[in-house]
């Protein structure tokens, strides 16, 4: 229970830092921290493999890619990329509305019972991927190939 509150507080703080930092490089680094803390949350929810994948793919891959993108797109005046917040009051109101709508829905919903069955079975997850969800798994591989080709085609120089 204490673990949950520590994780929750860390997640909320990092998430708020992500959306409020003016310096884009810092925002990306905060995002990385937030994603690592999420991996901790997955570990608490008995999803070991997911925690590992979260750190490898998100914190390792996505954050590195985003840092590269930030560095590769310098501003004309060579300043560090800063980003002002546009209309923070309206954004805050919308976010608050969203949260209350979700919270109301959650409080009224019939949720699965509180007795958690600790399933920490990476083998079984892998087996599910290659049996019950084989079609989706293969479709995913096609999607990843398409994304890879699309990224190369879109980002390449036209004159090269």
């Amino acid at each position: 229970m204490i673990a949950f509150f520590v994780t929750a507080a860390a997640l909320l703080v990092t998430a708020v830092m992500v959306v409020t930092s003016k310096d884009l490089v810092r925002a990306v680094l905060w995002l990385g921290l937030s994603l690592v803390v999420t991996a901790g949350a997955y570990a608490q929810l008995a999803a070991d493999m997911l925690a590992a994948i979260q750190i490898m793919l998100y914190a390792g891959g996505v954050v590195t890619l985003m840092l590269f993108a930030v560095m590769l797109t310098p501003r004309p005046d060579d300043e560090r990329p800063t980003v002002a917040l546009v209309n923070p009051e309206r954004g805050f109101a919308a976010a608050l509305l969203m949260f209350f709508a979700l919270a109301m829905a959650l409080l009224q919903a019939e949720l699965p019972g509180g007795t958690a069955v600790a399933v920490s079975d990476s083998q079984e997850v892998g087996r599910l991927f290659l049996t019950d969800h084989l079609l989706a798994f293969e479709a995913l591989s096609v999607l990843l190939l398409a994304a890879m080709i699309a990224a190369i085609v879109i980002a390449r120089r036209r004159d090269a």
Partner: protein
Amino acid sequence: MALGVLPWLLLSAALFSTGLFGLLTRKHAIGLLISVELMANAVNLNLVAFGYFRGDLMGQVLALFGIALTVAEVVVGLALVIQLHRHNRSIDVDSARELAG
């Protein structure tokens, strides 16, 4: 004392709303991508929490699909950002206004 699924879902809702705030207040294309990332992360947390408290592995399987989809989205998004920057010398999303039909 064990917590139920509700605190996790509320946490996830709060994270999602934070991402929405970022999405509405940023004008920088990479800033927008970061916010979307935060929201997708909240959704994955939701899936895993449900899977855990239902006692099956479906949540983890779905979350893994979600992670792979988000990564693909980020790759294409960043490629678009780089191309936009090459084209306009700026990655303010308003600079892409000429794309509007």
